[in-house]
């Protein structure tokens, strides 16, 4: 039933603007992969090409062993959930859900039975005879979900499905979507600009920018080990400090930042990086201390976060955000050193 999705070397243009650049992606059977990125990164274009609403300039889309690339949208057999629900306003909730079955020639008694069963699953059976206009946003999205699931598609796609819902409902709905998707084992492609949503719902997340996938990994890996500077910034690494390797001492790398600051770092994190690199950390990954090895800085504005104090610091390498101790915190204006916590630092290639 469910099938793997393979996107091969997809390119797309709007006029002369290239919006997708040789994008490849595969989603294993039963897996949920999110495309995450800000608006204009190409995530929705990718989804619309897979759905058959847009034609790519080049590249292929496969679902299982079917080549979808030239199939019209109505022949692709993909369940779609839209941001604005896209329910048929002139049909009742039941008829909305039964619509896809009707297109497949399922006899009326059978399709009503199956549509009702699906409405039961999303908890909307009592609303079967209502028109969509009489439903709340969350209910509408549940109907849309039921409508997409009832045709038992080999692939489900979500286009920012929770963006129109309020914060509390968003969290409930994403749990519900995840449960239904898991229970059915349906391969899913999920488009969102909300990092928390993508991370909480997905098996893997593809972070996109300017028509490319910059990193495709599990949420855990993305959060802790971004592969490049863009992804690092995207997942909240406030500090990207340019450094240079100046020597090695066994398993330790000696590196220098602007202003001659030297740090001793573990070779393990360097991989193939030999010379210039970027040291990326979150504010948590730099400890503010009065002395010791670290990046000398002048402490600027101090804000209280509850779990720590956060400082905007001025260092020779530029502005750095770091967290300081709750007990006896240094005052703004004091001189300090910022010591990287090696487990929380990433060594990145400056070219990426």
């Amino acid at each position, binding site marked *: 039933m469910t099938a793997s999705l393979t996107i091969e070397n997809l390119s797309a243009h709007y006029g002369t603007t290239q919006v997708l650049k040789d994008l490849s992606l595969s989603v294993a059977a039963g897996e949920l992969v999110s495309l995450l990125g800000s608006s204009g990164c190409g995530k929705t274009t990718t989804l619309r090409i897979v*759905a*058959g*609403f847009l034609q790519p300039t080049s590249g292929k889309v496969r679902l299982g062993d079917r080549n979808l690339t030239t199939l*019209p*949208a*109505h*022949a*692709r*057999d*993909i*369940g*779609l959930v*839209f941001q*604005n629900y*896209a*329910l*048929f*306003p*002139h049909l009742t909730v039941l008829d909305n859900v039964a*619509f*896809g079955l009707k*297109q*497949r020639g399922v006899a009326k008694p059978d399709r009503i039975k199956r549509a009702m069963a699906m409405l039961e699953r999303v908890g909307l059976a009592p609303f079967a005879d209502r028109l969509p206009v009489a439903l709340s946003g969350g209910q509408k999205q549940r109907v*849309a979900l039921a*409508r*997409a699931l009832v*045709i038992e598609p080999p692939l489900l796609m979500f286009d920012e499905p929770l963006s129109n819902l309020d914060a509390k409902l968003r969290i409930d709905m994403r749990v519900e979507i995840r449960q239904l998707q898991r229970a059915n084992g349906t391969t899913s492609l999920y488009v969102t600009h909300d990092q928390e949503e993508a991370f909480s719902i997905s098996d893997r997340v593809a972070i996109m920018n300017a028509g490319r996938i910059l990193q495709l990994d599990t949420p855990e890996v993305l959060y802790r080990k971004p592969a490049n500077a863009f992804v690092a910034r995207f997942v909240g690494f406030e500090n990207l400090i340019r450094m240079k390797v100046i020597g090695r001492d066994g398993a330790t790398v000696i590196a220098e930042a602007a202003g001659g600051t030297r740090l001793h770092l573990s070779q393990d994190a360097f991989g193939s990086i030999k010379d210039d690199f970027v040291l990326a950390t979150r504010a948590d990954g730099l400890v503010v201390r009065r002395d010791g090895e670290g990046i000398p800085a002048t402490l600027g504005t101090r804000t209280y976060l509850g779990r720590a104090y956060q400082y905007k610091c001025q260092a020779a390498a530029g502005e750095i955000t770091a967290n300081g101790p709750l007990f006896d915190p240094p005052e703004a204006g004091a001189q300090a050193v910022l010591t990287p916590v090696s487990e929380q630092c990433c060594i990145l290639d400056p070219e990426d």
Partner: protein
Amino acid sequence: MPTRVHPLLGAFAALVFLFLLAPLVIIVGASLSDTTYLTFPPQGLSLRWFANIFQIEAFRRTAITSLQVAFLGTALSLLIGVPAAYALNRYRVELPRWLSTLFVLPILVPEIVFGFSLLKSITIGSGLPVFPSLILGHALLVLPYSVRVVGASLASFDFSIEEAAMSLGCPPLRTFLTVVLPNIQAGVIAAFILAFITSINDVSVSVFLTGPGISTLPIQILAHMEQFFDPTIASVSVLLMLVTVGVMAIIEATLGLTFLTK
């Protein structure tokens, strides 16, 4: 609690209503006059001028022509106008702006010029017989109403439901018929009524396109008035008014008048 209205505003509103209704009152009055000439207030009450309409064969014949032309012309204009309005809205971004202006041209061009150009292009240019040229001319005349009114209901139409239908396995044409059309129904009906009324009332296009033996009711009314200045004209007008009121009453009873204005 009733809203208080300033007396001057009340008086002004009353004047507006008087201004709107007075001509109708005068027509109704004149149609009931027992005189052989048009006059108001009526002198003596009589229904003879109403009876007279039905004795004049030309009125009956042209009324039927008018209805046929209005019905077929409007239907033809919707056949062109609905797909055009759909395309103009669906591909709003891709299509050039002037294209939608093109469809309003028949109202922008002075009617008399439009009528004359139709005479030149349809009747003389293509040598089409009178009846089909009338239908074609009226279809073009009312096309702006079809495109604009249907377009207005498509402007608020959410095209993603069309994509939803296709993703569920519905082919494009069936999607248009079963998903798009039911949702713009009110617009199509409103367009039909507006176009129909415009066509029934039209003089300037018909005057150029009517020919030997075939005329429309408004043209016949004009012809009649040139020969006999009697209250028959007023009676015909009253009948036309009653037909309009009847149509409105049917709409009100079935769909509610509000959809014409929304």
